[in-house]
């Protein structure tokens, strides 16, 4: 069974590491991180992602620009905001997004 590929963008390296560790603990998910919008776009172009989490450091304007870029490259990708920086909200954010409730 193919894993759900999740791209996480956050400009705080330690928080990004925590989020990726939590995602990759789930054997059905595969998380890859990016610390900048530019890195996120470059990574997005190299891989097939099902879900993008926009975390800390992403402002509203950057979010809109990234949404446009990601959707133009893959119209099926789900993009959501991640809040909290840790395990509290992560699982339900991903579950809710995969249930079709993304941005």
């Amino acid at each position: 069974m193919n894993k759900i590929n999740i791209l996480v963008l956050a400009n705080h390296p330690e928080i990004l590491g925590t989020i990726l560790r939590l995602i990759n603990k789930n054997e059905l998910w595969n998380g890859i991180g990016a610390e900048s919008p530019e890195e996120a776009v470059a990574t997005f172009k190299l891989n097939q992602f099902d879900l993008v989490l926009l975390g800390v450091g992403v402002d509203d304007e950057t979010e809109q620009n990234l949404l446009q870029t990601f959707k133009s490259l893959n119209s099926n990708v789900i993009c959501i905001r991640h809040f909290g920086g840790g395990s509290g909200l992560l699982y339900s954010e991903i579950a809710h997004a995969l249930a079709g409730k993304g941005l």
Partner: protein
Amino acid sequence: MQQTILHKAATRFSADHGWLKSAQTFSFHGHYDPERLQFGALRVLNDDTVNGGKGFGEHPHDNMEIISIPLEGTLEHQDSMGNTALIRPGEIQVMSAGTGIYHTEFNKDKDEPVTFLQIWLYPNELNVKPRYDQQNFSQKDKHNKLLQILSPNQDDEGVWIYQNAWFHIGEFDKDFKTEYQLKDHANGVYVFVMEGDVEVNGQLLNKRDGYGIWKSSIEIQAISDAKVLVMEVPEKW
């Protein structure tokens, strides 16, 4: 028609980790229920009890307004901004996690449990500089009145947060009745009963029940001696 949502105490998701027992009103950690995600900006309402000497090791937060209200015992907080503090019943602590912060929360007492409410609100401003605040309201009059303990305004009573929200706390004698008027008529009110039994707009609530009402001021009547937390929060921000 008035929009309301009732969360009976027994319907909260229960997590028992041995050292931590948590009753969670909304989806949290490994628990996901699409019908229990939030009440407007109110995203997390956890009723946590931590055994003596135990606690949450260092963990991160970002972009949430995190509020802690101890009900019994003493909580020790340490964070990456260098804050170290004890929080006791009668006090409220807030962290605006913003661009990222690490902290620990431990039961200061080695023998007795600590019980506290951990409440998270979505912020109305992202990526703010992290901040911490704590205030003591134990000496303030909350007997048969609603005392403001949180607002969006730095110059107002209580702590302040990055969100258009107000928290009030009250300790009521049996049969006491009061009204809560919305500060912002686009907001809703979520009442959490810490102790006792109350009626809110005629809805009976028991200990640890939660009740949310959109766009309406509310009448609270104590059916027994009671302690309530009234949280006014926005639906959209």
